[in-house]
């Protein structure tokens, strides 16, 4: 079961990511204990050089993890025909209890890595590496997450058994079932669209406020995170139905299939990018007053807010286009 090329590729990436996480986590602990920029000792110089390696390795691994996240979902969808009862990624992920946790862990790693890479970027902008400690505290936190994600993925793939009868997305995303997915699909389409519009407006207001007042990006990050949750709920509750042109099909994975023109990627791509940028803008705002960064960091934050707003706008356009071109009429 594990002998499939995409699975081997995914495990390879996880293995490399884990090795890098373990090593850089250990190095992070050393930095936290002994980092002293004022010292000219050999150990400090060695550490300063190693930070360059850690950044490079981490950037590389996180890029690979991003590609792996896409491949993971795509592969789950492709493998559906191997399992009795599965019709899309939902069925494949449901074959054993580790599938969905593995996906969630991968998404968490994606957001954590995005924020960390931005911290790294900001840190290099200051001549005295002002964020080094913060960066390594974060890294020590991310390392276990990477390991957890790799462990879940490995357990999931090792326990894939084709004789298990799994359930299809039409079973999981049905309002009559007592679970979260069902709650989300049971959300009334009107309420979901109002919520989506409302949180979209909140994001625009918070973004405009942060751009004009040159502070308050934390509020923007919060609004972005809320929009992310609401958007996922809205995709399940109403947007996917428009894409399927079917009022009772709510699956958030089938929209990634070729039958629907890979439309899901147009929704999830900008949504994930916008949220990651919003989160890192919020985190960086906390360091805008660090002396060596006052000249450069605000500009970076403003650029991230603009890019994030742009990504959310693309997501909005994709949602509106899905509704406009659909033959399904839910209202009126």
């Amino acid at each position, binding site marked *: 079961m594990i002998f499939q090329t995409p699975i081997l590729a995914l495990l390879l990436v996880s293995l490399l990511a884990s090795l890098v996480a373990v090593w850089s986590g250990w190095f992070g602990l050393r930095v936290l204990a002994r980092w002293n920029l004022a010292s000219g000792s050999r150990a400090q110089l060695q550490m300063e050089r190693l930070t360059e390696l850690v950044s490079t390795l981490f950037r590389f691994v996180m890029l690979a993890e991003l*590609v792996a996240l896409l491949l993971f979902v795509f592969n789950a969808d492709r493998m559906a025909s191997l399992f009795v009862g599965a019709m899309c990624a939902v069925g494949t992920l449901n074959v054993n209890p580790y599938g969905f946790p593995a996906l969630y862990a991968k998404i968490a790693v994606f957001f954590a890595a995005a924020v960390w890479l931005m911290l790294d970027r900001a840190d290099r902008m200051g001549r005295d590496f002002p964020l080094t400690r913060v960066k390594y505290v974060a890294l020590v936190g991310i390392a276990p997450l990477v390991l957890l994600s790799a462990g879940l993925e490995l357990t999931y793939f090792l326990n894939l058994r084709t004789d298990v009868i799994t359930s299809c997305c039409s079973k999981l995303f049905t309002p009559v079932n007592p679970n979260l997915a069902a709650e989300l699909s049971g959300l009334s389409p009107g309420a979901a669209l109002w919520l989506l519009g409302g949180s979209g407006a909140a994001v625009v207001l918070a973004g405009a406020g942060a751009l004009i007042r040159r502070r308050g990006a934390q509020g923007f990050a919060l609004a972005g995170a809320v929009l992310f949750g609401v958007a996922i709920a809205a995709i399940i509750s109403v947007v996917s139905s428009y894409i399927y042109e079917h009022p009772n099909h709510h699956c958030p994975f089938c929209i990634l299939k070729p039958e629907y023109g890979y439309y899901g990627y147009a929704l999830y791509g900008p949504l994930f990018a916008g949220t990651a940028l919003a989160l890192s803008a919020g985190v960086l705002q906390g360091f805008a007053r660090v002396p060596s960064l006052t000249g450069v960091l605000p500009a970076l934050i403003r650029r991230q807010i603009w890019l994030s707003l742009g990504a959310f706008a693309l997501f909005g356009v994709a949602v509106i286009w899905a509704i406009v071109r659909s033959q399904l009429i839910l209202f009126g």
Partner: protein
Amino acid sequence: MTPFLRRQRALADYTLAALARRRGKNLALVVIFSVIVFVVASAMLFSAALQREADLVLAEAPELIVQQLVLGRQDLIAETEIAKLTAIRGVTAAKGRLWGYFYDRISGANYTVMVPDDPAMMPEPGTVAVGEGIPRARGFTFAQAPLFLSRWPGELQKFAVARTFDSDSALVSSDLVLMAESDFRRFFEVPPGVYTDIAVSIRNPREIATIVEKATRAMPAARFVTRDDIARTYQKLFSWREGLLVALAGAAILAFAIFAAEKASGLSAEEAREIGVLKAIGWDSSDVIAMKLWEGALIAIGAFLIGTVAAYLHVFGTGAALFAPVLKGWSVIYPDFRLAPQIDGMQLTALFLITVVPYVAATLVPIWRAASADPDQIMR
């Protein structure tokens, strides 16, 4: 152009020139890397194409096949069972099928002998329609040559060849002999009223499981094979074979990664001097790392493209001449077929991850080591 893009363009420009200065060494690296990508890509493309052929063939297969079991082996099934199946709600039709294998001692090959379902395909009694592999195996020298089949020494039956299937359908028809029902029963001595198995068509695929359940109660001794079962088995088989080849290639990838790490860490005197000069004129460690990453990326992407294109030509141009025996199995009259070219994003992504990522990972530490050393230390 933003400063970021300008910087990257300048780095790429510099790196290309630097690569060209050490043409021999880099060319060797690209060639070896391309060969590895080629092996992995060929295995992936070929097994995906075979799987697609199998899916296309199976799309025409009946939803459900019912076989009689005796002593755990398949046996002939009585005509009376058909009525039990058609009585189940949801079954559109159930038809007895007559087919079997015939071992031809002259060519040493097994033929599949069948009575066609479709009346339009039914040959006249005394004639047969054959797949393209049979004239090939028998070495027919002229177009109208009759087919002689001998069941035991001293016995010979003559059939006129009414038509030969072309190689478009070779995957399924290569070893096929189509016969009229009367000829078939006489040739194999099959009594009337029994069939090899029963093909059941079902209109709604969601009802298959329920229909199988009901049919099992009506015919407890029978075995039910659904089309999805067959498709699933094929998919498992092909992806397992592909995975096995890729895992074997893993050893080669590992060896290559070690080779690449070795190459990247053993800087030639000239390269070391170059890095020393760059650092002395004000390049940062991160600039040198970026330059070296560009070097790795150019080599990796070049090799990836060369290897993938070569694999594409190998699989779809030559029918995967190098790997075919492993991946498709072997038989005396193997169908002579062309695979329909196709390639998708997932294959390319998996291929990229499995070949390029180990290479980059192996070279990162040596790159950093070279870039972070002091200029005077390197040049000394």
